[in-house]
């Protein structure tokens, strides 16, 4: 219908529309990429840990006496912690899986020769015998590995070098090492210490740390090694029945330190808290990016609204004239909505190119996959709606201009 006249009118006063179109283009590029980056972060944030995080707390026993005996301390503490009413299982561990302190990495292979140039790295979860129960991870095949070791090594290196004759691993690592799916019963060879171990159990999944960055999938390739962590600083993981964590924690805080002489409680924390602390960076950066996205949308909406309002104000007489010569209210309304839609669309087309360029840059920076196109589609629809919404009020005002205006001098 009036598209040609509309374009002609747009062309005569092109500065404002061009400015808005450029604004819309940048907005689309920013919006779409922020949405993608944040959604990737949320996925990382929510990624299942495989651990019964809500019902676990940890306590650090810190020995200081020169005659502190780690071996008897482990025995006493494990007997005490496992004997508390409401505790499902407690175990001593070399690292806290969601504690954010990182872990112990080792190279693994499936043949004795393979350890010379091992291609597969993984995290080691060194824990005392009831470790899998204390973590609450799900065993999907085989059984939990067991160790008969009684005397702990003097340091962490020694503790790892003790390496039990049987281990369990996550299904992810099992699949990477034995793609045929026959890991159970096979032998795992470990570099650096050059020791073999029989794989007796497969665990559905477990996530240690770190949870982002190039080492993130490393953190889910876990080998569970039964063994004794070295002293004099030891972490105990305690898993309780649902709802009884805080009560057990209070009890441990009161009486744990005195069970063994020459030590004190270094720190105590729920695993919920540790896991949340570890994700603080993900959370705050997502909030910053989200805030920028919302603000940029708001500012663009103001811009579109402003331009439309200006157009309506300067054309009041022309609108009156059109109404006087027979245009209906809805014609006027449509005119302004279509005009805005054309501007938005021009901006969106340029914006798509900008968004893809920015997305390509980000995917290199953060090792992300390419920006999925449906994000772009959502962004385009969102901006169309934003444009329509912001124009609606001025356009309604335009359509209510009385035909009589045309006959008046301003």
């Amino acid at each position, binding site marked *: 219908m009036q598209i040609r006249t509309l374009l002609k009118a747009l062309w005569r006063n092109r*500065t*404002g529309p061009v*400015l*808005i179109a450029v*604004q819309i283009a*940048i907005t689309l590029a*920013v919006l779409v*990429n922020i949405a993608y*980056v944040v959604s990737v972060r949320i996925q990382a944030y929510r990624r299942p840990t495989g651990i019964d995080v809500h019902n676990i707390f940890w306590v650090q026993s*810190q020995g*200081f006496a*020169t005659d502190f005996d780690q071996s008897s301390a482990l025995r006493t503490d494990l007997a005490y912690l496992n004997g508390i009413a409401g505790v499902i299982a407690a175990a001593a561990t070399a690292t806290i899986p969601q504690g954010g302190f990182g872990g112990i*990495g080792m*190279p693994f292979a499936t043949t004795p020769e393979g*350890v*010379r*140039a*091992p291609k*597969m*790295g993984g995290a080691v979860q060194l824990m005392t015998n009831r470790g899998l129960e204390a973590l609450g991870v799900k065993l999907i095949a085989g059984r939990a590995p067991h160790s008969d070791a009684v005397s702990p090594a*003097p*340091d*962490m*290196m*020694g503790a790892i070098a003790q390496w039990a004759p049987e281990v369990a691993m996550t299904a992810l690592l099992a699949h990477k090492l034995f793609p045929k799916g026959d890991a159970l019963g096979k032998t795992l060879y470990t*570099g*650096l*210490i*050059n020791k073999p171990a029989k794989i007796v159990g497969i665990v559905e999944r477990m996530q240690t740390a770190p949870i982002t960055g*190039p*080492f993130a999938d490393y953190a889910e390739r876990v080998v569970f090694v039964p063994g004794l962590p070295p002293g004099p*600083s030891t972490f105990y993981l305690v898993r309780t029945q649902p709802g009884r964590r805080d009560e057990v924690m209070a009890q441990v805080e009161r009486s744990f330190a005195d069970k063994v002489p020459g030590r*004190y409680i*270094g*720190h105590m924390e729920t695993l919920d808290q540790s896991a949340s*602390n570890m994700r*603080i*960076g993900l*959370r*705050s*950066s997502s*909030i*910053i*990016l989200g*805030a*920028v996205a919302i*603000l*940029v949308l*708001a*500012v*663009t909406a*103001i*811009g579109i609204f*402003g*331009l439309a309002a*200006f157009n309506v104000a*300067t054309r009041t007489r022309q609108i009156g004239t059109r109404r006087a010569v027979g245009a209906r209210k809805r014609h006027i309304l449509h005119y302004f909505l279509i005009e805005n839609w054309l501007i938005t669309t021009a901006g969106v087309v340029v914006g798509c190119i900008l968004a893809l360029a920015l997305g390509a840059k980000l995917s290199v*920076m*953060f090792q992300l996959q390419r920006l999925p196109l449906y994000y772009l589609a959502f962004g385009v629809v969102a901006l169309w709606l934003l444009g329509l919404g912001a124009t609606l009020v001025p356009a309604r005002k335009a359509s209510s201009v009385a035909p009589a205006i045309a006959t008046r001098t*301003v």
Partner: protein
Amino acid sequence: MLLHDLKLALRNLRRTPALTALTAGAIACGIAATMVTVTLYHARAGHPIWWKEGQLFAVTLDTRGPEQGGPQGPHPEYPPFLVTYRDAKALYRSDIPTRAVMMYRSARVVEPTRAGLKPFNALVRVTTADFFSMFDVPFLYGSGWTRAADEGPDPVIVIGRFLNNKLFGGANSVGKLVSLNGHEFRVVGVIDNWMPQPRFYDLSTGAFDVPEYLYMPFGWTTALKLDVAGNVNCVTPQAKVGSFNDLLTQDCVWLQYWVEMPTLAQREKFQAFVDNYVRDQKQYGRFVRPLNNRIVNVNTWLAMNDVIGDESRLQVGLAALFLAVCILNTLGLMLAKFLSGAPIIGLRRALGASRRDIMRQHLTEVVVVGVLGGLGGIVLSWLGLWAIRVLTYVPALDDDPAHLAIAQALSHMDATMLFVAVLVSLLTGIVAGLYPAWRIGRMQPALFLKSQ
């Protein structure tokens, strides 16, 4: 003249309060977003010891075996950032650098004698004597130790101010004894407030970590079999670990190595020395990769470790785009506003106002909006930084005020940033105002007078 322009601008702005508020608000948002992200970036990009740039160098050797299992970092060409014990000992024999430091982090249990204090775990920097003079560490009492004390090793320690407050109530504790895991050490120095951020000399446990409160002569490493409380990375497939002794002999990297070399001659000589050492070691089957020994200054070192991080860069980039949107927005709204006032301008021109008068007056109006937005932006950025501080606050593992201090240092706006904020808002106003003012100044007055 200027005053008159200002008066006119204010009157004009007051005539359309909603539009003024929207425009200034948009600018405020843009400036706040930019300021918040740039402040975070600025804090990360700081040079903690700029007065010694070009004199301090981190030493890295490519100890890696032919193939490395596991994931590769984004820069596989960099040698490991830490060195092995035997290489550190070998480099330490060179007298080319003015000062040299090999060090790492360990942990000990402090048993206080003061009543009411329980034993506690403390991180210890085990280092050679030059540490304090090399990094210009300020002393409250006493001083560091001598190279002879490293050899002894002498039972001496340097403690930080926080620990001195905790153990001795802040008094001069030089000469006092501190018991660490049952061994008595004599305090020889107390470090004053000192918090280089980023903690450039050891980035392996996080770039914004706190300096340790305990420093112990390097010789205690073997005497006490001190465990490493940091990264240990065994970089060749032949490396075999099982005991503390393996830590000393195998190709596992865990030490930081720094040298101070003020002259170019020293640098060239030392690079040659290191390269020769590595060539010599090749005959024992070590250092199988091509020569790749990097001796880098602090700036390069921070860049290699990517202390700033892509996250900060992304935020600054997006905020800059956002500011661009805000400027375009102001430009568009101001243009529209000026054009709608065109008939009055026409009248003023006809009555004798020059083009320059009109332009100057309109530019003043936009700059006023820009400054209003800038002020709002400064308030908003304070709010934003406060929010970030609250969001990222981790209840520290101990009662150490330094953890909080770092969070604050990272998200606090200093005088420089305030100055930048004002400058950016003025520039925003000028950039956004130039075109509309020019357009309105160029208008033919007759056109509008006629249509009246």
